[in-house]
């Protein structure tokens, strides 16, 4: 079978295997992308609309192609506005999806959904938010990765050179649990209104556990330790880091008067490693580090503290997770090559956007 043909014609009972044989899947079975299913996914939208070109192959990401991948991922039509917005965000130059798709690092794009659409399409923001069990989260995250893979040609060991890959590469989609957050919406800090629905793409590692008792010192002290590990890319390369604060921790911090901004400031000031720690491990040379570290870091001073990001706002703080559990998690980023991108989701099936950043 040729993967360059517009379509394949196969016996019904062979459809699943045909998708595997054509190299279209991520290793899991897919929903066979029949014309009827794709038409339902696309609705009244213009299937020829190009969201961008997907590196490294440079294939145009038409809405039609994205819809085919959304069908294969198992999405419902009501999920498609989030999928297409996420695809548009991933193709925004600031995100640098070429680097993310081709890097040897373990970072992969993950999706963060905020606003009313979280409830409207049944996204899970509670127990198991990063894990399996919810169709919306699993299929939306999977659809983005299938589309990036199939249109960008990001195949492991060919042009996706990630040494290990990342389980979030199957499906990385979380939602904000706004109802238990003591702070404004995640997207509000990124320039949107509370009642708007947004999608953010962030390239990062799988979540790392932050286990801490429910007092401010315990939570922030443990977060500082977890977030400043030398094994992450951040201390070497800066970039961004995602901190997902669990409801118990969020309630404690908010109850003690901590805002998102003061938490960011505290972590920026304290999640640091002295220069001597870098010299001890010799991961890279000082010349390489100096190109990434802020100018004020004195690489000749062994006691100088090196932050994990250049600016407190580069620590992205989301509230999500189940009610019980003294846990938060952090997802280190992949360096300074790209930045998280947030776009508005517009659930208008007519898709009459006049703003290219608005879907």
């Amino acid at each position, binding site marked *: 079978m040729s993967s360059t043909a517009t379509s394949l014609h196969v016996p019904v009972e062979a459809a699943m295997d045909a998708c595997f044989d054509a190299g279209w899947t991520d290793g899991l079975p897919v929903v066979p992308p029949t014309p009827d299913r794709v038409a339902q996914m696309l609705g009244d939208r213009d299937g020829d609309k190009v969201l961008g070109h997907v590196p490294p192959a440079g294939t145009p990401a038409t809405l039609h192609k994205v819809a085919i991948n959304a069908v294969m991922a198992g999405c419902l039509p009501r999920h498609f506005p989030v999928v297409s917005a996420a695809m548009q965000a991933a193709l925004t130059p600031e995100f640098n999806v070429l*680097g993310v798709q081709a890097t040897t690092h373990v970072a992969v794009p993950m999706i963060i959904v905020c606003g009313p659409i979280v409830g409207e399409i049944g996204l899970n923001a509670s127990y198991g938010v990063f894990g399996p069990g919810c169709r919306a989260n699993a299929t939306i995250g999977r659809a983005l990765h299938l589309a990036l893979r199939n249109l960008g040609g990001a195949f492991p060991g060919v042009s996706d050179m990630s040494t290990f890959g990342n389980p979030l590469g199957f499906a990385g989609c979380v939602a904000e649990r706004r109802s238990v957050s003591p702070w404004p919406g995640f997207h509000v800090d990124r320039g949107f209104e509370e009642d708007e629905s947004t999608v953010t793409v962030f390239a990062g590692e799988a979540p790392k556990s932050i286990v801490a008792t429910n007092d401010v010192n315990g939570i922030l002290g443990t977060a500082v330790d977890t977030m400043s590990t030398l094994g992450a890319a951040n201390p070497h390369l800066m970039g961004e880091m995602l901190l997902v604060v669990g409801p118990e921790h969020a309630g404690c911090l908010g109850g003690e008067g901590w805002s998102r901004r003061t938490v960011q400031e505290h972590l920026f000031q304290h999640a640091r490693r002295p220069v001597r720690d870098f010299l001890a491990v010799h991961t890279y040379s000082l010349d390489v580090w100096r190109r990434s570290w802020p100018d004020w870091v004195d690489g000749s001073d062994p006691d100088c503290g090196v932050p994990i990001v250049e600016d407190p706002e580069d620590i992205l703080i989301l509230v999500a997770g189940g009610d019980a559990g003294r846990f938060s998690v952090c997802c280190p980023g992949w360096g300074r090559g790209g930045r998280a991108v947030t776009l508005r989701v517009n659930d208008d099936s007519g898709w009459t956007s006049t703003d290219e950043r608005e879907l």
Partner: protein
Amino acid sequence: MGDVELLNPMYESGHEERSLAPPVAELAGAWISSLDNGKWNADRLLEGVLAQLVDRHGVGVALRGSKQHYNHDLEPALVDDVATVSDGVLVAIGD
């Protein structure tokens, strides 16, 4: 049961195809540039290979380029400069 049509989720024939540049036919007298990815040792590796190409094969070194940061793409202007002045390009990644 009959057949079912499955739509291709990948690229299709018809979009712009690109091919690799042809190899340098003759090293003697060729102008060679180097591009490193900005990681540790990439520049050293390239300098060593360039020196051998100059000594053994009589190439000229046209331009030495480096990514500003290894997470970033090469600057388009640098790519254009290299394409303008070079018969061939050496690339290396270090780490």
